[in-house]
């Protein structure tokens, strides 16, 4: 089965772009290709001036570690770690010392309004709060590109809207690509790419 076909789009630095479409339209696949998690059979994927199809798996991992932040629908936080430790986790791979990791994670959690939830574990947080922790984790390495895969999928309408607003607010220096079937994404994004059956139907 082909998830994406003849798909081509450019995103400019600093842009906030919504990749909107119904379930099965291929938006998550497109996001994973941009993030170097999936390789296209044909074509090129230029991200931050690098063709991902030319990179090895470990080189793509390094690129993600240094330049890309990920936000997932189901948050994917480690249940045993506190909010602060979850946020600080990507910094461990970079060899950042503990004191600096905690300081940076605290700053990010304060930015997403969770300054009073630093030591709470994911199980002690609401869905909206967990997704805010995930946003802080995605931004803690100060990436150029943030990829969000259905970030509001697990949240109620109001919380979803708040999380989207928060995302575009705190990621003001980043390029953000949000894959969603939530039409309200249009309200917060600079541009919307509509996807249907693996093809881009509208660029508005």
């Amino acid at each position: 089965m082909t998830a994406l076909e003849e798909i081509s789009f450019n995103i400019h630095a600093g842009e906030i772009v919504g990749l909107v479409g119904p379930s099965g339209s291929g938006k998550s696949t497109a996001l994973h290709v941009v993030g170097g998690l999936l390789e296209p059979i044909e074509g090129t994927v230029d991200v931050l001036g690098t063709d991902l199809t030319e990179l090895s798996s470990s080189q793509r991992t390094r690129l993600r570690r240094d330049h890309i932040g990920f936000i997932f629908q189901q948050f994917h936080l480690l249940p045993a770690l506190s909010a602060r430790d979850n946020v600080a986790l990507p910094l461990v791979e970079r060899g950042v010392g503990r004191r600096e990791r905690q300081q940076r994670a605290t700053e990010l959690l304060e930015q997403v309004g969770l300054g009073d939830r630093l030591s709470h574990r994911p199980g002690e947080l609401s869905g909206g709060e967990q997704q805010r922790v995930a946003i802080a984790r995605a931004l803690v390495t100060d990436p150029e590109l943030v990829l969000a895969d259905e970030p509001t999928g697990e949240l109620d309408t109001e919380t979803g809207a708040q999380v989207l607003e928060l995302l575009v607010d705190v990621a003001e220096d980043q390029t953000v690509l949000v894959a969603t079937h939530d039409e309200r994404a249009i309200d917060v994004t600079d541009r919307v790419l509509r996807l249907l059956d693996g093809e881009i139907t509208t660029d508005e």
Partner: protein
Amino acid sequence: MGNLLTKGRAITRYAVAQVRHERGRTVLVVLAIALAVLSVTLLASLGLGVLQTGEERFDQAGQDVWVTSDSVELTATGSIENPIADSHQLAADLENRDDVKTASPLAFHAVYVGTELDDLELVTGVGVPGTRNTNTVDGDGFSEGDSHYANGTYDGPMSQEIVIDPQTAELFDVGVGDTIYVGTSRMNAAEREFEIVGISTQYSQFLGTSTVTMPISELQEIAGTTGTDRATYVTITAADGVDRDAVSEDIQQSYPEYDVRTSEEQLESMLSEYLLVLASGATLVVLALLAGIALTMNTLVLVAVQQREELAALRAIGLSRGLIAGVVGGQGFTLGMLGGVLGILATPVAVLALDHLAASLVGFENLLRTPPIIYATGLLIAVGIGTLGAVVAGWRAAQYAHVDKLHSRQ
């Protein structure tokens, strides 16, 4: 290097956090590892204790060479086969050798003893020659010795003297100067009463069972073996300045029909008869180890399975497989160390309890020995189990840390 150190410290912290988070699971695995460690330390302490206690007992017995025939074993009724015939003569012949200082027959036979004829107990009767020192803690010991032997005629006076161990004394509430019935059956015990002339632990500690000691000719008399003059051993002390191994070998050559052993060899021979017991012990330890390993690995792999999507997400955000494997696998080390420490802390307590049990059952005091090497081995086992768990779980975690495991519920 500094980078690695930072990562190592972080992995340790996160591993400890995971272990603390799942308390019920942690308690279960730690207990399993502690049990495995404890089974190893206890069996090792017991093995070492049996060896050392055996050596000490043989040293205390003060005999260099043991002459016997076939294997010495307890019969179903608790008696020991007496395989040497004409034992007094054999002892006399051996004592005539230049390289031998003393040679004495030693016999064992199950006997009934008691103060009331309807309340007799079966104990091990030990027959000793002469007025051999029985290390009495109370009483003077035998006054006449082996007088009944009378150069093999067995018509000398019976001293009717007996030395009993403290357990028997306590059981019948008797002491030096009291009399006690002795016989090889409940029927013939009524015929003979012996006067208690001493309380001694010497043979009960050697055999690990309740014993009464009497002149060998008198034991042979009540056992009905005077015709063949049966004994279990002829024990020999080597002449001063003579190598006991050389004496043992020389006697063996002169008496090929007997088994001649030094004290060490005799101990080994006696222990080898308990091979099945030792093998059962070793099997239990192996089972405990396997259970510990299986439970640890199963639990850690389960952690990896339960968190496969989180692990895949960490991989997606750029964490290396090594770091992810470390965070999951690090729990193995933590659990192993906790289990090891608990097992080691429990060891002295369990040793104390087992020592108490051994003392009350078989009369050996401080049977289990726990030199530092025992504790070190226990810790090594725990770390080994933890490492194995860590490697397997880490490997599984690294397998799961793949984008295929990321599912979005669109």
